């Protein structure tokens, strides 16, 4: 592949550069608290849940949509995984239960949006409450903790994928999964018909329709895929918590959307980068980790992350204005 537009690469690399800058700044501020290999492994594992959901969210946002229900879907999928493990379906069964749950939730979002012609913001605001309620209902309003011997061992099996502890392991399996998903998501955006149509719908839905793009089917597929990835994120969260907690991942949708936006996506649609979103998720995890390491309280992290989002979008707008002239 020949690289024709360096601008694209600057846009993609910028969030990764920001990660480096943040690490350096903290290192200068507190040289006694460096980022060790172990810290990186830990931070990478912390990125998994938001990162997986952000891959799907990038596609949704590029199609000029939004998915506010992603936190609820993650919680519901985690509960599904826990229930499946508890019912003796095994680790694989737990994963499948979560994936199916996530995909169904996403597809339902898509059907509401194209069927009732609801703005994605409203449709997923509604299902955000709906899925959260279902999660609490099926979990009988408490954490699902697989307790018999088989359940415990299956849970431990899933937990092993997520925890960055195993000796001789460079990265946790979940981190490899995140990287592979990101590469696949970025590749498919450029090289498949679905990716092309996603960009086209986000850029101009009227033009896409004129060109014969099946708008409704495409949107349902995009939301279903985003749901599937949220389901995968739900498995990872279950692995980390070792319980299916229906009240987990509250507010995580904002982190996911922030990661996508920091990664260079436009909420107006038509633009966005999957690898950028991964960098966005990593940036936020690194910030949280560093703030904790130097002993800054939680609210400082929130203040900094808030400004990083504002800065990222401001830089992007400035870049767009420049290239337009």
């Amino acid at each position, binding site marked *: 592949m020949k690289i024709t537009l360096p601008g694209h690469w600057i846009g993609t690399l910028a969030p990764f550069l920001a990660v480096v800058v943040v690490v350096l700044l903290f290192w200068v501020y507190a040289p006694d608290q460096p980022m060790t290999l172990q810290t990186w492994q830990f931070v990478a594992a912390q990125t998994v849940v938001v990162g997986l959901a952000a891959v799907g969210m990038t596609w949704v946002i590029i199609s000029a949509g939004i998915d506010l229900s992603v936190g609820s879907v993650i919680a519901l999928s985690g509960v599904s995984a826990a229930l499946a493990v508890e019912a003796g379906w095994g680790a694989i069964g737990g994963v499948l239960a979560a994936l199916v749950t996530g995909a169904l939730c996403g597809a339902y979002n898509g059907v509401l949006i194209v069927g009732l012609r609801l703005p994605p913001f409203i449709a997923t605001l509604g299902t955000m409450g709906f899925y959260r309620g279902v999660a609490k209902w099926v979990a009988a309003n408490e954490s699902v903790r697989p307790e018999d011997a088989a359940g415990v061992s299956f849970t431990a099996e899933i937990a092993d994928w997520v925890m960055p502890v195993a000796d001789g392991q460079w990265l946790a399996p979940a981190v490899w999964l995140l990287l592979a998903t990101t590469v696949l998501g970025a590749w498919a955006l450029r090289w498949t018909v679905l990716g092309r*149509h996603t960009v086209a719908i986000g*850029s*101009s839905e009227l*033009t896409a*329709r004129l060109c014969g793009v099946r708008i409704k089917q495409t949107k349902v597929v995009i939301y279903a895929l985003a749901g599937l990835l949220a389901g995968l994120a739900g498995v990872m969260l279950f692995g980390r918590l070792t319980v299916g907690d229906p009240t987990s991942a509250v507010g995580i949708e904002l982190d996911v959307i922030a990661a996508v936006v920091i990664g260079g996506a436009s909420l107006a649609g038509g633009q966005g980068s999957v690898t950028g979103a991964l960098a966005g998720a990593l940036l936020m995890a690194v910030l949280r980790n560093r703030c904790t390491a130097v002993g800054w309280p939680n609210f400082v992290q929130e203040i900094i992350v808030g400004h990083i989002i504002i800065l990222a979008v401001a830089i992007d707008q400035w870049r767009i204005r420049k290239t337009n002239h």
Partner: protein
Amino acid sequence: MTRSPLLEMAAVDKAFGATVALSGAHLRVEAGEVRALIGENGAGKSTLMRILSGVEKADSGTIRISGQPFSPANPQQARDGGIAMVHQELAVVEDLTVEENLLLGAEPSVFGVYLPARMRDRVISSLSLLGRNDIQPSTAVARLSVADRQLVEIARALVHDAPVIVFDEPTSSLGAQDIEHLFEVIDRLRKDGRAVVYISHFLEEVQSVADTWTVLRDGEVVGEGNISDTTTEELVSQMIGRRLEEMYPRIARDKGKELIEVEGLNTRSGVKDAQLTLHGGEVLGIAGLVGSGRSELLRGIYGLDSIASGSVRFEGKTHRPDPNRSIRAGIGFASEDRKKEGLATDLSVATNLTLGASSGRHFFSILGLKKERKDVEVQIKQFGIRTRGPEQPIRSLSGGNQQKVALARLVHLDVDAVLLDEPTRGIDVGSKTEVYRWIGELAAAGKGVLVVSSSMQELLGICDRIQVMHRGKLGASRAVDQWDEHSLMVRAVGGEGAA
């Protein structure tokens, strides 16, 4: 010493990278003069005006207003210096009132308290200078027609007392009657002693509104003179650099068998009981006024407007219109609204050109980007699309080149029947000729072309048969030699007059 003109631009140069947009361009407009600035798209008209209005900076050259040197660094300074622009796309705030729009950005105030009464006289006198005392300053702009909104923009120039007023393609969103009103308004501006620059590529318009003309071609002034001593032919050949007879090239073609048969078609958007048959190897024209249902007819056949009743057959088989099915069956459509619907303007030439072709394929099938790029390069060459390359975004192309991309898409789709809605709207004369040649070539290759146009002359020039639409009803088909501009117009306005 001679009296200096109200506006004088001299020896203006401007280059964007390696592309020379203007070279030594000049423009002089006296008080009380309406000067038409004409030229093809990309000739440099817009760049010259962007420099005048402070959006762009010239590389070299001078601007004088009433003899005083003037070099606006931004649009604000240009406005303060007395330059008012009336744009193609209207720049009014719909949710504000007429008065609020007129005073926007220059609100009269005392210690930050908005006191419109201090300027009310100016507002009223501006509206009455335009002959529109009937527009109340307190009316919400959202309630005005498109033509009246444009009037608000012109009135804004008067409120700020701008001596130089530039009209940039002001008629593109207006109907015939509104255009006449606009010309009256411009005449009032002339009598009031303003200098008016009128940009257009509609020569009929230019001839009825302007006193003098300047033609730009490839960034240079190639001619200027008085409207009264210049013929249309002269203006056209100045613009395109060649003669008018080559405008409607004809290639021999043979009528083939039926491609599209429409019977008793009613659309929810207002087409009533339409009948038509399009054959291979012919160009069928649909004439009619804006709002007659002519676009809706094409959109119904293609599947963009939903059908209430009636049947469409394609190559003898029943066709249930839907854009996706139409493309796969072999029907292509080009929209009249290039910027909103025809093209995704933020996406590249390549993506726009190939978007239709991927729509028939499975979601997870892989795009052959290499082959795609090669195909796109072939089309760029064949259509003579002026672009830096396949990756250039559509929005940075000129109107004519954008339209070529929209049409090249149909060639790339390799469809048998082509539905064209106003294929030459808003493009320059040179590009028009190329579009006409392309339509002729399609028909000669045995394809069917169904074309809607507002220009009767154009339809008479390119079609084999024409049907006229009036209030949703489509008249019977007649061979092109049985029509003339007059009889088409009579039918279009609902008269029964014979040819």
